[in-house]
């Protein structure tokens, strides 16, 4: 039977295309234009070619920020993904307990980012914050405003508290989608809980995990508000991540040209890493289904 070709459905994509054009493509084109010019104001700009790229690619301040950013993003992924899976596995499967768990888990996700920063800023203080006070009371010399390690731990803990629920909720939905027949077959085979997790749950969670890893990588790689409110990038530059360096450059110093060049480098890194994650995981899945 010949399949009827009808491409009229493409028109349905048009509104989305217009939206993406205005929210992403046109701003991106503008950033490309700014990155090759010295911008003074709306009517005064001088073409400088690749000068800003040379400047930002050789700037050690940016290299340090990039290193901190990768360290932060990979630490966040290493903690949040296994923890999110563990939380989802231990959640009740039905009844009012499961609804309660879902609501409690979703709460941190509903809090605006700047408020999360403020909550943790107060929470971590040794004089009035419960966390900081408790640590100091048991003899731990904790001060996130003066100690680099403490600042990093607090920023990491804050992100884990804020975003692990997202991973857990995604995994929970993935786990609920596994048909009972799989568990019944495993029971007949007397499979251990580890074997069930390794051979049934984890493979079936792969697609939601791809989504979780991608979302968490992109989000953590572009993090700005929370560490800015919590530590202001300090002590020194210890928690100054890429987006904060970029904002200082673009808004603080009004260096629009270098900031635009750097934004494009930043964009390309996010694009490359996201593509690598996506391709690796989707090909692993494909190889498994082929084999």
């Amino acid at each position: 039977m010949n399949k009827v070709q009808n491409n009229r459905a493409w028109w349905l994509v048009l509104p989305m295309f217009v939206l993406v054009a205005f929210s992403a493509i046109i701003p991106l084109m503008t950033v490309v234009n700014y990155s090759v010019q010295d911008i003074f104001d709306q009517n005064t700009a001088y073409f400088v070619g690749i000068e800003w790229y040379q400047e930002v690619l050789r700037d050690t301040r940016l290299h340090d920020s990039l290193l901190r950013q990768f360290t932060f993003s990979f630490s966040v992924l290493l903690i949040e993904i296994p923890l999110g899976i563990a939380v989802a596995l231990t959640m009740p499967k039905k009844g009012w307990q499961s609804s309660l768990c879902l609501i409690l888990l979703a709460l941190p996700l509903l809090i605006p980012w700047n408020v999360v920063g403020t909550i943790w800023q107060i929470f971590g203080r040794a004089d009035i914050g419960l966390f900081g006070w408790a640590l100091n009371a048991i003899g731990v010399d904790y001060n996130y405003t003066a100690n680099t390690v403490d600042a990093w731990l607090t920023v990491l803990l804050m992100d884990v508290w804020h975003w692990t629920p997202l991973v857990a909720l995604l995994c929970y939905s993935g786990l609920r989608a596994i048909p009972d027949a799989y568990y019944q077959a495993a029971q007949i085979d007397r499979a251990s809980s580890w074997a069930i997790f390794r051979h049934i749950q984890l493979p079936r969670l792969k697609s939601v995990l791809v989504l979780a890893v991608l979302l968490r990588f992109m989000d953590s790689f572009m993090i700005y508000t929370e560490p800015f409110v919590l530590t202001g990038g300090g002590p020194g530059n210890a928690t100054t991540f890429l987006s904060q360096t970029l904002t200082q450059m673009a808004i603080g110093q009004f260096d629009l040209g270098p900031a635009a060049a750097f934004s494009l480098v930043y964009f390309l890194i996010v694009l490359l890493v996201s593509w690598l994650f996506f391709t690796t995981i989707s090909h692993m899945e494909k190889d498994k289904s082929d084999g």
Partner: protein
Amino acid sequence: MMNWMAWTIPTASFFVGIGLILIVMTIAELKRPTIERKGLLPIATTRGDRLFIGLLSSAFIHLAVIGSSDTDIWWAFGISVIWVLSLLRWG
């Protein structure tokens, strides 16, 4: 009207080039639909995948040349063109 976008001739040419590549790829797809195949790259790719990989890696070739040396940017461009064409053919 487009003054706020601060257009320049080189950047406009760049986007026109990308637009032309996409138009040519669309026509090629309509005339001869792509078949996923495995070439030099470790994964099976379609024509569009190879173009995406080629363009993304070209961007990094340019950044590597600009960041590590004072070589003329046209060298990076030349290397990138050869790289993208090779990738489309044998990738």
